[in-house]
């Protein structure tokens, strides 16, 4: 039996070279005993010895005490086959549908509870912190004014510019004011605001509530006898309901402002723009724009809360909930906007 000395100082970098050398040495013998006296049994050395054993099998001999240290239990525990019940495809589908139903049901419960507790809070302030609505309105509304204004202005400007180029071909650039006013008040104002708020505030609501779930704060609220939905959502609900129409109005004004810049570039006098804008402003458009903005606000809040409350696990789950809340909110906002358009304008 040939004694093969395993060299000291095996690292991940030099292991492949050493393995090749050892393989070559063992190949030339009938049986070999591995000498590990000078070696530190770190994980790469142990893996290397196991690899040698796997390659050369019984040809390699190793002291019994070392064997225990080097080899680990790598057998899967036996599972009783009868316990491995195969789920038929139909049952699988049924389970998935039931899961989806649970999600929809839970979302509806949150939506209904949120609206119920919010109106109940008008005469029953229990579980509502003083000044919480104001704080939320400040964060959701005041802090978002600049971004809503800037984006709506740029979108209004871009749309007016593109439209003006096409209208000018037919000599119709005089209609810019009418077009941008109608488009901003009926569609883009509420939509742009809702998309910005879904990304900015909806995600932060999902992250805030999700973190509270992970940190057991929601459990703590429950066991203090506090209704978490009422405590967490009602101040946000009223803050949203109050600030969304205002933000939408700001978006409308900013978008029309963008159109005004384009109109002035096309030599349309300010007075003419203003009178055309006033002529095209319809009370019903502003009213339905406000209704839409409020319904978008409720959807964004409900989705953010739903995603936050559904968090299970740790920080990664909070991250996922945040992303999903933005995606789902924007999808629902656009879908509801389409429904409003069908109902109002067809």
């Amino acid at each position, binding site marked *: 039996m040939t004694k093969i000395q395993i060299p000291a100082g095996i690292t991940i970098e030099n292991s492949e070279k050493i393995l090749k050398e050892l393989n070559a040495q063992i190949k030339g013998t009938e049986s070999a005993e591995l000498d590990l006296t000078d070696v530190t049994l770190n994980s790469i050395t142990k893996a290397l010895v196991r690899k040698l054993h796997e390659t050369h099998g019984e040809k390699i001999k190793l002291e019994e005490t070392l064997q225990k240290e080097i080899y680990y239990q790598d057998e899967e525990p036996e599972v009783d086959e009868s316990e491995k019940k195969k789920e038929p495809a139909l049952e699988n589908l049924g389970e998935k549908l039931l899961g989806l139903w649970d999600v929809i049901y839970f979302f509806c419960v949150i939506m209904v509870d949120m609206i119920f507790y919010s109106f109940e809070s008008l005469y029953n302030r229990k579980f509502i912190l003083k000044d919480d609505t104001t704080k939320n309105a400040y964060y959701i509304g005041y802090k978002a004014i600049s971004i809503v204004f800037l984006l709506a202005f740029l979108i209004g400007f871009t749309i007016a510019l593109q439209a003006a180029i096409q209208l000018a071909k037919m000599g119709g650039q005089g209609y810019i004011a009418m077009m941008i006013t109608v488009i901003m008040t009926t569609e883009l104002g509420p939509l742009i605001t809702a998309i910005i708020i879904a990304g900015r505030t909806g995600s932060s609501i999902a992250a805030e509530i999700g973190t509270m779930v992970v940190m057991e*704060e929601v459990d703590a609220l429950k066991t*203090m006898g506090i209704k978490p939905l009422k405590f967490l959502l009602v101040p946000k609900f009223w803050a949203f309901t109050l600030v969304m129409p205002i933000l939408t109005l700001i978006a409308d004004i900013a978008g029309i402002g963008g159109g005004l810049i384009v109109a002035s570039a096309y030599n349309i006098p300010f007075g003419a723009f203003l009178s055309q804008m006033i002529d095209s402003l319809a009370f019903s458009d502003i009213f339905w724009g406000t209704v839409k903005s409020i319904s978008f606000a409720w959807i964004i809040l409900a989705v953010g809360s739903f995603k936050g409350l559904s968090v299970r696990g740790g920080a990664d789950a909070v991250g996922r909930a945040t992303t999903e809340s933005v995606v789902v909110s924007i999808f629902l906002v656009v879908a509801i906007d389409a429904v409003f358009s069908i109902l109002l304008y067809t």
Partner: protein
Amino acid sequence: MLRAENITAGYGKNIILKDITFSIDKGERFVVLGESGCGKSTLMKAIIGLNPPMEGKAFFKGEEIVYPMPENSDFYKKIGILYQSSALLNSLTLEENVMLPITMHYPDFSVPLAKDMANEKLAMVNLYPHRTKFPQELSGGMKKRGALARALVMDPDIIFFDEPQAGLDPVTARDLDQLFIKLNEQLGTTYFIVTHELLSIRRTAQKVLMLSDKKVLFCGTYEEAQKSDAYKVKRFFNVDKYD
């Protein structure tokens, strides 16, 4: 004070605990112990209704606890809970956190009085000078003491502790244990402590319930547990002597 009869608890279809029975007397420091994953926290969550029992009954001061617990249950006014993560609300100062149970349950109650009650409890746990700080400005041990003040503020009959020593250094953990014992002796509040910290068990336990393999392995006084012949109990208390 608290009695559980044949409690079976778990999550979904997964049964974690089966037929758990025990009783706790008034003023007693009752410690639930066992290896990680044996269902200690599950038992606590089942009793307080966060994850209601699948089977069995629990009685608090002689009255049966109804599961699922209604949101406005009076049970929650009579208990305090100290969570593993402290669970203080980050948007509120320490003082506001401690006042929270009073202001939420009694919205018409005088705010200065509620503040005074909160500050007295904060002084009890040596946090009065930090009352205006937010939880994120406090150390782990301070957060635990703040959460203890919140658990104490409504003068509960029983406090549930979920791994109170988790994440604390040995000195802070010892100080916290000494504080628990002092307050228990001073106020006579019953303690239900979930832990697997041997040192903490030695310091605080009067009665222990040991869980293993979904069942009660041992239930008795701390001294009886020390003398128990059951292998797993002996191994738990003398872990260095066993492989």
